């Protein structure tokens, strides 16, 4: 088997591969990659180099992990999961990513494709108008510094209190849409400046808002799907992928600088400057954790305001209220975050970067409505293929610190993708295939072409085969908004 690494990689199971701790000086634990043999062979060298670098970080527990959608990232690979002892271990912005609490939200409706198809153009135009996207876009919510501070502390709860959503939305968001431990005094003026006008905006890159269809033949678990509000029969759902925007990006940038200096003070050396870290219980570690939690709450608030705009757009186009259209939140889950969670080893700080929490039904941390199904996991594919609704398993809690994949994962650079197709050409091709795309940037659209990504179905089959997630439904795009 040819791999993009010279390190020894041992097969543990069909979907689990291990790089022993003896393969790189300084590794404290083995590294494990979740992948089929085919996916493993397609993974770039960065995955192997970076997951073994993570295995060298102080206080790491059990394994450094990478999910099957993994690829090169800054410091940690995308798809990386690592848990650290809260007393002896570190916290690293490189294990969270620049876009703190980048995540996915899924909204159901009672509409079918038959209802929507005749008004799809009108609907996409209305969504494009109401949900600002792209470089430098400002949101419609005007905040002063005091209100921004409330949003940092309360996340989606702040939104619901201000009328951007329904109270029952909150129990369908990870952590109820409000993570504790946020401290606005740890956030720089620059982060405030970048974030204060951006609430309710999508951003660009791989972020999107997508109108999708749940067809009967692509529902794999009818009971679980029904419990989550997915009823099939060409049901229309809406998926949102975005994060904390400039606010979170600045928090990451600020603390990478802080940690570079702190590492010298604490005598920590790392294999990659982008793995800059500090002891979790150091003043610097605690300040970053508090600022990161502010950014995580801003991301929950961002997706909540976008949800409000989506509901307003549907209500305007279909002349019925969002309640009458059954537009309930299915779930909202982060895939760039660090959280304190309890495992067999005790309290651990779990970093997930391009990886999703996937708690099983036995988890006491889940809201009561998910104690039968397990936690919903929302995985976005490329805009040309499909996305998936999955649920977490108890095995994930035992094996992967309750973590699984987050999307399909790129296989081609943005520059290469643009050489193969022009944005306008891709937009037309997708229209012919029944997918209406509205994009701020045509070059950005070309960069997100489906051929630049792994086949999401293969990635999903891997995590299902490994038993760390269960398939519920595949969701097919009919409309997409990109920045």
């Amino acid at each position, binding site marked *: 088997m040819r791999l993009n690494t010279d390190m020894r990689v041992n097969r543990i199971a069909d979907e689990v591969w291990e790089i022993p701790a003896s393969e790189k000086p300084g590794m404290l634990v083995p590294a494990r990659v979740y992948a089929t043999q085919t996916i493993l062979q397609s993974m770039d060298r960065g995955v192997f180099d970076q997951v073994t670098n993570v295995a060298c970080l102080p206080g790491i527990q059990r394994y450094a992990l990478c999910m099957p959608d993994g*690829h090169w990232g800054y410091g940690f690979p995308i798809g990386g999961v690592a848990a650290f002892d809260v007393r002896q271990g570190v916290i690293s912005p490189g294990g969270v990513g620049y876009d703190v609490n980048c995540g996915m939200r899924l909204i159901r409706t009672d509409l079918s494709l038959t209802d929507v198809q005749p008004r799809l153009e009108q609907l996409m135009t209305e969504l494009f108008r109401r949900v600002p996207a792209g470089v*430098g876009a400002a949101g419609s919510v005007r905040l002063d510094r005091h209100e921004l501070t409330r949003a940092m502390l309360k996340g989606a709860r702040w939104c619901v209190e201000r009328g951007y959503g329904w109270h029952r939305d909150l129990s369908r968001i990870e952590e109820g849409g409000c993570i504790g431990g946020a401290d606005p005094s740890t956030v720089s003026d620059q982060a405030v400046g970048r974030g204060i006008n951006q609430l309710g905006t999508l951003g660009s890159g791989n972020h999107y808002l997508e109108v999708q269809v749940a067809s009967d033949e692509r529902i794999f678990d009818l009971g679980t799907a029904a419990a989550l509000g997915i009823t099939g029969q060409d049901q229309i759902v809406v998926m949102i992928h975005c994060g904390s925007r*400039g606010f979170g990006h*600045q928090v990451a940038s600020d603390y990478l600088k802080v940690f570079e200096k702190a590492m010298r003070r604490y005598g920590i050396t790392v294999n990659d400057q982008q793995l800059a870290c500090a002891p979790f219980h150091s003043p610097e570690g605690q300040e970053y954790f508090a600022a990161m939690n502010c950014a995580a709450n801003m991301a929950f608030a961002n997706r909540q305001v976008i949800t409000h705009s989506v509901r307003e757009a549907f209500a305007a186009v279909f002349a019925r209220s969002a309640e009458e259209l059954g537009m309930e939140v299915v779930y909202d889950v982060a895939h760039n975050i660090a959280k304190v969670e309890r495992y067999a080893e005790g309290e651990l700080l779990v970093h997930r970067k391009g990886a999703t929490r996937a708690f099983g039904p036995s988890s006491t941390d889940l809201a009561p409505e998910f104690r039968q199904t397990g936690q919903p996991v929302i995985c976005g594919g490329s805009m040309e293929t499909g996305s998936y609704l999955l649920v977490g398993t108890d095995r994930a809690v035992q094996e992967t610190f309750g973590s699984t994949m987050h999307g399909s994962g790129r296989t081609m650079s943005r520059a290469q993708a643009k050489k193969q197709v022009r944005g306008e050409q891709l937009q037309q091709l997708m229209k012919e295939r029944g997918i209406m795309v509205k994009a*701020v940037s045509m070059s*950005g659209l070309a960069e997100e072409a489906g051929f630049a990504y792994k086949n999401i179905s293969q990635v999903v089959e891997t995590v299902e085969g490994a038993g760390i997630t269960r398939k519920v439904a595949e969701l097919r795009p009919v409309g997409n908004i990109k920045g």
Partner: protein
Amino acid sequence: MSHAFRFLDDIAIADIAFEAEGDSAEEVFVGATRALLEVLANPVTIADSWQRQVLKTEGNLDDLLIEWLSEIVYWKDAAGVVFRDAPLTLRRENGRWTIKATLIGAPVDGERQELRNDVKGITKHRYRMERNGSMWKVTVVVDV
């Protein structure tokens, strides 16, 4: 005085990398600046209705370039603008480097401007500034 930049295809699979060159430290700053403006939007489609003076000082050129490029990213979000140009001068005094620049651009307007990528941050992945004789070169990866 001259500078150049080019985008690198395969350094950052999900993001954007560029290399800038110049026949002086100032020119390599100009090259890197122009590359970043190109990442955000097509500069020739941007008007000049918005301006901001920027003055920054650091102990070395590596840190100064990161701080300067990050300043551009900051104003992109804080003022909701994209940029047409950013003329700059660099000077060294008492062992420290100072950049004096003017950011020139206009509020984001998708109808009139060719918008491109919303940069999240300037990373230090593979970041290095090298001097070879009279030529300066830097590689920068930006998170988008």
